[in-house]
C-alpha cells in the first residue's frame, strides 16, 4: 500500500544533473536510507519523492499509484526538512499540530496526539515557546514531532538528527526506528552519517554525483562493497585501499593483525585510543593503512611492524574503473602478492 518506487528519475538544473536516472524501491514498512557525501543529490531525490520538485524524466509511484504529477498534499506524506522549516510565529505546540488543524482533527484527539508526540521527542516542557527561543537540537525535534504526529504511511526525513549531540542522536535514532516499525511506516531517511545508515536501515542506497553507487542491505554494503567508493565510505575507519602492483586491494582495519611473522612490512605513524579498541595508523609502501586492535594498544609510533590478514578478507577492485572484481580473479592475485 505504501511502497515507494522510483524508476529512471532524473532532475537537472541547467547543465547540473543533480539526480541522474535513479531507480530504487522502498518496500512497504521498511526504512530506506539515502546515504552519500554532501551535494550528491540526496535532498533532491527526497524532494522529488515529496513532490516539491518536478522530475524531468521517469516515474514515481507510492503504494502502486503513479504520483509523478500529483501535488505534495495529494501524496499523503510527512516530511522533516533539512532546514526544519518551522513556522517562526507559531508556538512549538501549534507547529506540531499544524497539519492536524489543516485536516480538522477534533480537539480532543489533537491534544492527545500532541501529548504523545511531545513525550516522544522530549519537548513536553517547551510547548509554549517560539522556535526562536529553542536550541538547534530542540528545533530539529519540533520538526520531527510535526512529521510523526501526522502518522502518515510515508515519512521522508532529511538529516533529521544532524544537529543533535551524540547521546541524543543515539536515543532519537532508536526512537525513530522503533516508531517507524511500530507504525509500519515506509520511511526514506537522508543522511551523510554512515553510522546512522548502518544502524537504522533495512536498505541503504549510496549515492555519488547524482547516481546510485550501490543499493543493498547494510551488511551487503559492508561485506561486499560494489565499488572502491563504497568501500571508502562505509565503516569507521573505512576500508583500507592499498595499491599493490596493478591491483587495488581493500581490507577492513579489523581484519588486519600485527604479528611478528606477518607478510607485510609497515611502520607505525600514530595510534588513536578509542577505549574499547585502538586504531593504529601505519604506512605500507608509502600508502596509509589503519589497523584496529582490541583494547589499549601499546604499539609506539615510529616502530616497524609486520601486518598480516587472511586472503579471504581481501576485497579486490579494478584499479581503473574501481569496480569490485569477483572471487574468480582472486586466485591469481594470491600468487603475485607474495613477492
Amino acid at each position, binding site marked *: 500500500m505504501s511502497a515507494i518506487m522510483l524508476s529512471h528519475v532524473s532532475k537537472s538544473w541547467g547543465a547540473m544533473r543533480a539526480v541522474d536516472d535513479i531507480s530504487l524501491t522502498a518496500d512497504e514498512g521498511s526504512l530506506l536510507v539515502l546515504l552519500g557525501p554532501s551535494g550528491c543529490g540526496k535532498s533532491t531525490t527526497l524532494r522529488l519523492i515529496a513532490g516539491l520538485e518536478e522530475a524531468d524524466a521517469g516515474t514515481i509511484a507510492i503504494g502502486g499509484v503513479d504520483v509523478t504529477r500529483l*501535488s*505534495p*498534499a495529494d501524496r499523503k*506524506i*510527512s516530511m522533516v526538512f533539512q532546514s526544519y*522549516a518551522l513556522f*517562526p510565529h507559531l508556538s512549538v505546540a501549534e507547529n506540531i499540530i499544524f497539519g492536524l488543524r489543516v485536516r480538522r482533527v477534533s480537539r480532543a484527539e489533537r491534544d492527545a496526539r500532541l501529548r504523545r508526540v511531545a513525550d516522544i521527542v522530549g519537548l513536553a516542557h517547551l510547548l509554549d515557546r517560539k522556535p526562536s527561543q529553542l536550541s538547534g537540537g530542540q528545533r530539529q525535534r519540533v520538526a520531527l514531532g510535526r512529521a510523526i504526529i501526522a502518522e502518515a504511511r510515508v515519512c521522508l526525513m532529511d538529516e533529521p538528527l544532524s544537529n543533535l549531540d551524540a547521546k541524543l542522536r543515539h536515543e532519537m535514532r532508536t526512537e525513530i526506528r522503533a516508531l517507524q516499525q511500530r507504525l509500519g511506516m515506509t520511511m526514506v531517511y537522508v543522511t551523510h552519517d554512515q553510522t546512522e545508515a548502518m544502524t537504522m536501515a533495512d536498505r541503504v542506497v549510496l549515492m555519488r554525483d547524482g547516481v546510485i553507487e550501490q543499493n543493498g542491505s547494510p551488511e551487503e554494503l559492508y561485506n561486499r562493497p560494489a565499488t572502491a567508493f563504497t568501500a571508502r565510505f562505509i565503516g569507521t575507519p573505512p576500508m583500507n585501499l592499498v595499491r599493490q602492483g596493478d591491483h587495488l586491494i581493500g581490507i577492513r582495519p579489523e581484519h588486519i593483525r600485527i604479528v611478528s611473522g606477518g607478510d607485510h612490512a609497515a611502520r607505525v605513524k600514530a595510534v588513536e585510543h578509542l577505549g574499547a579498541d585502538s586504531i593504529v595508523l601505519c604506512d605500507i609502501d608509502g600508502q596509509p593503512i589503519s589497523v584496529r586492535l582490541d583494547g589499549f594498544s601499546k604499539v609506539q609510533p615510529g616502530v616497524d611492524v609486520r601486518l598480516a590478514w587472511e586472503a579471504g578478507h581481501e576485497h579486490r577492485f579494478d584499479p581503473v574503473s574501481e569496480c569490485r572484481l569477483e572471487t574468480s580473479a582472486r586466485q591469481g592475485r594470491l600468487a603475485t602478492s607474495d613477492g
Partner: protein
Amino acid sequence: MTDLAALPPIAEPRARSQAWWNAVNAWLLLLPAAVLLVAFTHWPILATIRHSLFITKRNGDEVFVGADSYQAMAADPIFWKALVNNFWFAFGTIPTSIALALIMAVWVNRNMRGRGFLRLAYFTPTVLPMIAVANIWLFFYTPDYGALDQLRGLFGLGRWNWLGDPSTVMGCLIVMVIWKEAGFFMIFYLAALQQLSPDLDEAASIEGASRWYTFRRITFPLLMPTTLFVAINAVINSFKLVDHLVIMTKGGPNNASTLLLYYIYEVAFTFQDSSYAATLTVVLLMLLSAIALLKFGYLDRRIHYQ
C-alpha cells in the same frame, strides 16, 4: 575582584577618567544628529506650541491669549469639515491601497514571465512627480474632454464635472491616491515576501494546507511587521497630502475636498494668520503622535518580528 584590589592605587582614577572620556566620546558622536534633530524637529514643535498660545499684532507685538485660539478653532466649521474630510479620506485610501498592494505583491512574487516588467509597471506611479500625477488625473476628470466623460459619452450619458461636484470630488481624490500608493506599498510587501523562506510554503503544502490557508495562517502573520509599517505610513501620508489639492481642487468646491494640512496651508499663507495655523498644526501633531504611540506602545508588542 582580587585582581582589581592588587592594582596600584593610580589605576582607579585612571579607570574613572577612562569611563568619563568614553561618555564624552559617545556624546560627541551623537552631537551632529542631535543638533539636527533639535534644530529642525524638537525646537520647531515647541515653538509651534508656544506660538499657538499667542497672537501677533500688526505691529509685531506678541500677546498671550491662552486657549483662545483653540476655542476659536472648536467653533470653526471649516476646521471640522477638514477633519471629517480627512477621516473619510484616510478611511477610503488606507485599507484599499494596502489590500491592493498585498494582492499585487503576492501575484508578482511568483515565478512567471514578464515579472520584472509587471513590478516596474506597478511601481511607476510612485516615481512620477506629484505634479505629473495630478496632471494625468486632471485629464481623466476634466468635464467633456476628459477620459471619464468620453467613456460616459459612449453610453449616452451627459457631462459630469467630477472635481467640481461636492459629491464626487472626494471619491476622485481617493481613487487617485490609491493608484499612487498601492504600487509604492507593494514594493515593501515584495521585499518582505522575498525574505520569507520558501520552505515554509513547502512545509505547509505537504501538510495539505490550501494556498489560502497558508496565506492566512503563515504568510499574512509573517508580513504583519510590513503591514504595520505600511499602515503607519499610509496614515501619515493621508494627513500630509497637500500638493494634489493645490493643483486639482484648491480644497473646493465649498471645502468638500479640504484636508487638514491643506487648511493649515491656506490659513498660514492665504489668510496670513500664523497663530491660528500654529493652533491647527498642534492638533495635527497630536493626531500623528497618537498614531506613533499606538504603534510603539501597543501594536509592536503584538506582532511577531523575525
